Each structure stands twice: as C-alpha cells, then as structure tokens.
C-alpha cells in the first residue's frame, strides 16, 4: 500500500517533518533517534515533503516511513532497494531514501545490495542495525555476533556475522558511513552528507533493540566509539584505509568511512540514451537508403 500524504505547507521546524502518527516502537528503541535525526536532516536540507520519498521493507525499523511527512512506501520484506530504485529511475527528480533493518537488508534482501552499490543510482540507504529481528520477536540476524543467544539460536549462534561496511566498500558503493542512534547530532551530519553525495550512499546506523537485546547496548557501543572526524589523518577517499577501519575489532569507528566521486547511473544513462538515439537515427536513415527505389 502506498500511503500518500498531501503536499502540505513546507515544514518550518524539524518537528513538523513528523507525520503525527505515534510510533509503535518500544520505549527506548534506537529507531526513535533515527527518526529525530532524519527530521533534522530534512529540515537542514530544506527537503520538500512532496519531492521526497522514503521506501522501507518490513520490520520495526521499516515502520519509519509512516512517521515522516514525506511520501512513504512501507513495502515488501527485503525489497526496499529494488522498489526504491524503480521509483528513482522512473522519477529521477525525487529525493529517494530507502530505510530498514539488518534482516531486511542483509538476510532476505542481500541479493539486491551489491547491485544497488555498483549501479550508483543517486539515493541513500539507511540500515538501522540492531543485530536482531525485532518485529518477529528476537530471532538471529545476519549481523548478530557469533555466540549470540536468540530464539532461533538457542545454544548460541555458530555463524559468522556479515560486516555491512566491508560489504558495501567491497561492492563499490561510492559513499559508506556509520552512525550511532545514541548521538543524534553526529548522525544528522553523517546522513546529511550521505544525501548530499551524488550516487548511492549507504549508512549503517547502530540502533539498539532494547527489548530483545537490552538497554545496556547504548552504553556498550558508546564506550567503543571512535569519531573519524577527530582523526585529521583519516582520508575517506583511500579505499584501503576504509577497509582497515571497516575491519576493526577493538573499537567502532563512526563517520564517513569511504567516499568516492563517480558518475551516477543517471549521468551514464543520459549519455547512453544520446548514443542510442543517434545510432537509431543513422540506422533508420540507412534503411531509407536501402529501400529507395
């Protein structure tokens, strides 16, 4: 179902970017932080609700589309990316954001992720990573740490978790960043940069599930944070350094991890269309020559 929101008057405060629907998230859920940050980003960039469309899959995090005063599309589990890509390709002028959970992105939907990265369509994908399936009540997620006890890993997970940042850089994404829902101000900066980036931007937001993992997650993550902006030597255009940061075990780096300038899919499509059109003309003309009596 597409929930359409009439283009109302341009919001003047971040708060006015909220749809007014009361979130059904548990008290303390990390996703509240992401919602608040997004409202501030929309406000900072002056995004028009009627020109902005946010797509999500299914999950607690995916409910975010309903809470924002832009076009919202709460879609199919795992399919936020292809649906968002379809919309962006059909209406390139829209600001397109996709959002969802770690299960949505890296379990059922993982097949779409590398292709979204390598195509470099100008859109932003925000994954609220809580390392668990929240909506279905606490099953193992592809980002759950090894040994984690969940309702479907009753004796501890024996699987190696996916590292979304490594994956994104490996798949040639042109903007890769990480944020923490416990630091809204920093998250606003990171998401703003992501939306401003021309091409596909991927942002992993560590957004704890207080119900199925616990409130202490906020503190555990906070104590491990390392802000890349504080490191004057860090160069996000350096791919090897980015891989290195993505692979850290002793701390959690947040900020822009990797960014590269590259023509977007639309830039290239425009050139391709012109080529195709000129070749087509030539072919038609040739045909006329052939059939001239």
């Amino acid at each position, binding site marked *: *179902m597409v929930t359409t929101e009439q283009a109302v008057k341009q919001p003047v405060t971040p708060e006015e970017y909220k749809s007014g629907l009361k979130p059904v998230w548990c008290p303390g859920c990390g996703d509240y932080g992401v919602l608040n940050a997004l409202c501030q980003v929309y406000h900072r960039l002056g995004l028009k609700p009627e020109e902005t469309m946010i797509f999500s899959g*299914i999950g607690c995090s995916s409910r975010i589309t309903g809470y924002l005063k832009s076009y919202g599309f709460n879609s*199919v*589990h*795992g399919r936020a990316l292809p649906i968002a890509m379809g919309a962006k390709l059909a209406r390139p002028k829209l600001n397109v954001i996709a959002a969802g959970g770690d299960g949505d992105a890296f*379990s*059922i939907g*993982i097949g779409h992720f590398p292709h979204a990265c390598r195509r470099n369509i100008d859109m932003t994908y925000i994954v609220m990573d809580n390392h668990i*399936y929240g909506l*279905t*009540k606490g*099953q*193992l997620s*592809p980002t759950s740490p090894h040994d984690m006890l969940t*309702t*479907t*890993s*009753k*004796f501890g997970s024996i699987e190696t978790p996916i590292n979304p940042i490594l994956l994104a850089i490996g798949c040639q994404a042109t903007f890769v960043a990480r944020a923490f829902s416990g630091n809204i101000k920093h998250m606003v900066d990171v998401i703003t940069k992501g939306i401003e980036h021309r091409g596909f931007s991927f942002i992993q937001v560590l957004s704890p599930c207080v119900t199925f993992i616990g409130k202490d997650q906020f503190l555990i993550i906070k104590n491990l944070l390392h802000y890349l902006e504080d490191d004057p030597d860090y160069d996000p255009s350096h791919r090897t350094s980015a891989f290195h940061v993505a692979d850290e075990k002793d701390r959690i780096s947040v900020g822009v991890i990797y960014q590269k300038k590259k023509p977007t899919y639309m830039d290239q499509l425009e050139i391709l269309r012109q080529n195709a059109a000129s070749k087509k003309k030539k072919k038609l003309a040739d045909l006329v020559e052939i059939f001239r009596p």
Partner: protein
Amino acid sequence: MEKRVLITGNEAIGAGAIAAGCDCYFGYPITPQNELTAYMSRWMPAEGRTFIQAESEISAINMVYGAAATGARAMTSSSSPGISLKQEGISYLAGSELPAVIANVQRGGPGLGNIEPAQSDYFQAVKGGGHGDYHVIVLAPASVQEMYDLTMLAFDLADRWRNPALVLADGQLGQMMEPLIPHKMSRKRNLPPKDWALTGAKNREKRVVKSFYPAIGELEEYNKHLASKYRKIQRRETRAEEYFTEDAEVVLVAFGTVARLCREVVRKARQKGLPVGLLRPVTLWPFPTRRFEKLASRAKAFLVVEMNAGQMVEDVRLATSCRLPVSFYGRMGGGVPEIAEIYRRTRKLLMAVSIKAAS
C-alpha cells in the same frame, strides 16, 4: 493412559516432524509460525539433526531441494507471504519428483495482509501454486493433534509418491494450545526404497534428478507420467471426515479452523433435531470428490464456510456438478466466522430446502 503434552499447534508440527524422522529443517521467521522455527532450533540439534535459519524463504526451500535430492527427510515452513516465495522451489521439487514437506501457517493477504488467521491460500495450495502442470498433496489439520499427525503423514505421503506434501494450517491452529498425544511412527509403513537418491555413484550406475526435458516430445511424455501419478494419488490418498451426514439435508463443508466451528454448529442443530451434517476434507488435494458425489444424491444443499472470499466452494460446485444448491459464507482478513452466524445461515438454508420440497 497415554502420555499427553500441552503445546501450541506450531510446536506440534515440529514435534510431528521430529517424530517422523525429519533430518533437516530449514526455516525463516515469519508470524504466525515463529514458534515452529524456535522449536526446531531447540530440538533438532538435540536429536542430532540439522536446523538452519536460512537467509530467506527462497534459500530455505532450495536447501530442502538439495537435501531431498540426497534422500533425506527435509522440511520447511512459513506463512503466506513466505510461501509465495517458495513456489519456484516447490515447482522444481514436483518437477524433479522429490519428496519434501512444507507447512503453511496461513495469515491474511494479499500482499503483507496482516498476521491474523486466514484460509486465503487455498487456491495456491491445491492448484499447484508455482508454474507448470503439477499438484502438491495438501493436508488440512483441524486440531493440535492433527498438526502432529498430519505432519507425520505428510512425510510418508511425500516419500510414497515422490512428491511435495503441504500441511495447510492457519494462524489460529498454529497459536492455540491443546493436549497432544505424541504417537511414535508406526513400523509397518511399507515405503518404497529411495533408489533414486543422490548418494554418490560408487559401484553403481549414476542417478539423475532433474526437471528439464528439452528434447521434442520428451516433456509431454513426462507430463503424462506425472498426470497418471496424480490420478493414482487421487484414487488412493483422498481423506475426509464426515459428521452426522447419513441423513443430513444440509451439509456444511469446511476445513481446518472453520471445520471446528461447523462441528459445533452441527452439534447444536442435532440437539434441536435438525438434519444437519458436516463434511470436512482432510486432503484438500486430492479433493474428496467421490464423497460429494455420494452426498449430492441424498442431501438437499451444501453450505461451504471458509476464511476467504470463496475458494474451496468452487471445488465443491465442481464435485457436485452443480446438481444441488451450494451456498457460501466467508469471512476475510482475519475475520473468523461466528458459530451463531453459521447456525443462522444453516437454519435459513434448511428452511428454504424444506419449503421447496413441500411445494
């Protein structure tokens, strides 16, 4: 007295599968069948078997495809949206004549629908569901005990006929708790040897599992072979339960959750001396057509009750060749038919047929 345990319908499917010797269970979470996946995560490893939460339903059904090809007893389960994703794999399983068990704990649709109980995947289940000319054996439990029993039976039917078998339940049956007698698997089941399984071709001719018949005419021959197998299944494996049908003028027809309600309606009607009965298909495919043919010569009308917009009712009309009136009452989107309303409609229908008979 036999040992009884109090468990949910979802867990009963898991218990039945383990009792039936299921070697591998591949699942993916979805409400309202999560208790089944959780149960398998707890108990399969303890039995030395394999449980995996796959990365998606598509992955899970293909893991079943692989495991089944090696001759293992393999199973997956989901609820409606996830079952849609499995259809490609089910078509390949049927096309490769591999035994496998799939459980669908239905919820409302189409699309994301909701997580309430429904019977709206009837068409998908009994008409094939995926592409190509095939059938899946479909069993419809109506109690926690049957969730267990019919899951066990599904494994045997799948092996006997080298065909996927589907247990078609719904969210209500999955979530409710009832006492269960956990029978052991009977010894004399006489199943054919799995002389087609891929077990390594050491000291024997190689075996081929495939669903691809590209040479001209080859596929049609294969389709004919499948069709004749399906006819045999129809002759031998049809199951239905009849309740007070001998002298019934109005016969209620329902499966699963709704059959429980209709049974109550029949009980109430009989207390009042009204000639009402219930025919409950236990196999939805093969459909108990013969029973309908027989009843059609005695009864005066059928009332089909379902939790959908009217799906099985089409098969009832086909089975009775429209020889007598077939009425329908359905609730959708998580709505459950109320006993009082079924009763009211039954009485009305009974009155209508008696007036018609008198005039």
